[in-house]
């Protein structure tokens, strides 16, 4: 890597989030926790309605990063769940390069990632490490 600075692509915008999006994710992941799709169950638990699965928005954010730097190049992805996401929310995924360096003879990049709601509130904060091929 010769001081080359990676430029992140445009943020991705997803939504408004529908109950169908949530159910599709639950089916794909195997997490069938009813609080995310059963209206009566969610209300009985004290919530106004169903809410999204944290791993769904964490997955959207991971997709943004992996679509940019290549799915085969990810080496670490760590997500912290902050605000809940509700049906109707519009989510924006973006990130910046925190560090470019070499490790194990490969070029690597650390990213600071964020998935925000339309309110500006942070739904997921994440950190990722990717190998950057051919520049190591």
């Amino acid at each position, binding site marked *: 890597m010769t001081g080359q600075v990676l430029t992140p692509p445009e943020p991705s915008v997803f939504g408004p989030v529908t109950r169908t999006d949530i159910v599709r994710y639950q089916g794909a992941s195997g997490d069938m926790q009813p609080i995310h799709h059963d209206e009566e169950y969610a209300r009985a638990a004290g919530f106004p309605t169903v809410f999204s699965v944290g791993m769904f928005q964490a997955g959207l954010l991971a997709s943004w990063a992996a679509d940019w730097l290549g799915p085969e190049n990810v080496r670490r992805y760590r997500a*912290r769940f902050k605000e809940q996401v509700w049906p109707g929310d519009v989510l924006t995924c973006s990130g910046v390069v925190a560090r470019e360096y070499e490790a194990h003879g490969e070029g690597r990049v650390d990213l600071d990632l964020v998935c925000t709601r339309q309110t500006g509130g942070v739904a997921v904060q994440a950190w990722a490490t990717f190998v950057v091929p051919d520049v190591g």
Partner: protein
Amino acid sequence: MPNRGAVGKSGAELVMDVERGKIREFARATGSRNPAYLEDERPVVPPTFLTTQLIPQGGDADVMQLAAVDLQRGLHAEQEYIFHGPPPRAGARLTFSTTVTDMYEKQGRRGGAMTFVVMVTEFRDEAGRLVAEARNTVVETSPAAEAQP
């Protein structure tokens, strides 16, 4: 209350076949149209795909029961995946088991204790090589914290 005696204990060893169709389904469900997932003959898994380890466990991770985490009060706080090389590809057969590695308390902002439980899953390939790790942190709030108006 989570069971502190569970720290160091592991759940059953399970097997996960990484399937191409499941990778496509998961990629679409997480907003990716990347041909590397959708068209490749042997795609790698998306970064958070290994969460599908829940499927052979029947939906509720048995190690959560081991740690006595109340799924009604338990919230997912953090999730991390580490790959020791490129992520596993379709066709791989992974063996995995989950260990409760840590349990600690913090004071909640509204009073009441929050108990954090950390569970680490190690995924090995057919040669026994450690190919990926998942670190799952859940938090259970005490009833006192929720009794606030």
